[in-house]
């Protein structure tokens, strides 16, 4: 089963000025696309050829000999998820059951913001910041490179790509500015709330 690159859920310039058209062209059209192509090449002719994406990720997680498959499969998953975590005119604060759960498990929305930014800032090198559901509780985590909550028995609710390619054309070394914009202008809280409801 060949894996395919999902279309962006908005136009390439829909996130301007926060994330530029150029960034999305490269990030989706080159980086995400390359992970899809690499994954299909790596699993072709193997026992994973007909497996679903999450099935592949779980099957090869922690297997050093299959790091190439894991990295590309996980990056396909991470990026498909990331595009849905942001939207034009997003950001702000969540409401309803999601906000109640954030208040209950993390103390307050402000505490979540602080933890999420700290996770993104301290993920040294390339990686991701996450809001996950772990044994029924919300947690803020970070993962290096391609690693993801699925490999740790957690359910992803929200992610922020902190590979430099996610923000370098628009923010260069200023990762904190990208993170602030991500939270204030881009997060799709409806998607996060739906993930929580489905978990």
């Amino acid at each position, binding site marked *: 089963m060949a894996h395919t690159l999902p279309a962006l859920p908005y136009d390439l310039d829909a996130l301007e000025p926060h994330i530029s058209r150029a960034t999305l062209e*490269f990030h989706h059209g*080159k*980086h995400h696309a*390359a992970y899809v192509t690499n994954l299909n090449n790596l699993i072709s002719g193997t026992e994973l050829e007909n497996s679903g994406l999450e099935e592949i990720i779980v099957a090869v997680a922690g297997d050093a000999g299959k*790091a190439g498959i894991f*990295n590309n499969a996980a990056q396909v998953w991470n990026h498909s998820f990331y595009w849905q975590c942001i939207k034009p005119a997003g950001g702000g604060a969540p409401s309803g059951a999601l906000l109640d759960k954030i208040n209950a498990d993390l103390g307050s929305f402000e505490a979540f913001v602080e933890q999420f930014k700290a996770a993104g800032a301290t993920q*040294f*090198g*390339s*990686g991701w910041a996450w809001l996950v559901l772990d044994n029924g509780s919300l947690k803020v985590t970070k993962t*290096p*490179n*391609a690693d993801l909550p699925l490999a740790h028995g957690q359910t992803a609710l929200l992610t922020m790509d902190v*590979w*430099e*390619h996610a923000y*370098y*054309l628009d923010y*260069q*070394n200023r990762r904190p500015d990208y993170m602030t914009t991500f939270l204030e202008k881009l997060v799709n809280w409806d998607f996060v709330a739906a993930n929580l409801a489905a978990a």
Partner: protein
Amino acid sequence: MPFPLFTRFLLAGLTALCLLLGSALPAWAEFSLPPLPYAVDALEPAIDATTMTIHHDRHHGAYVANLNGQIQANPSLADLNLNDLQAKISQFPVAVRNNGGGHWNHSLFWTLLAPAGQGGSPSQDLIAAIDRDFGSMQAMRTQFEQAATTRFGSGWAWLIRKPDGSLAITSTANQDNPLMDIPGIERGVPLLALDVWEHAYYLKYQNRRPDYIQAWWPLVNWQEVNHRYAIATSGR
């Protein structure tokens, strides 16, 4: 670009002030950002001036500042030079490893670059060692390119001289380097280094890391590589 000039002016001013007052530099100024050994546009068009400015002033500058920020919590840092720190890095918190590595790696990286046509060529001794251990210069280059291309995420590719005298191509994640006493790192004296963090090439090459690697070869300062090899060999 007023920023680098301003930064240099500030650092020069601080140093002058300390000299004037007869005081040592404050502890947080223990490690300092070395100036680039050439103009920011000297490596154009392969590496553009904007990339050099941000890479040196902001990225390297932040590693220096963050390393100095660790001195208070790790006072023994003040007694170590940057080189000696690398071989003891496992004794320190990860913030020292990341920023101490980032400072050492970038300080080396700038010296290993030269404007195209000004870097000289590999010495007879180095060529002989490369032929001995890789078969040919081309084979070494191919292995180096492979290491640089396949480093997933952020990191570095290296040509090192191992303790047994042989040369090898390695790669490290993030700001680790071959001098570090970290399990899993193949250790040796770095002779040649390439930064393959996306910040090193993204403004000009975006996702095309292989193009950056090809554009980088003509910028190698072989005189410095020769010098490093001669020192590493004589120290045997």
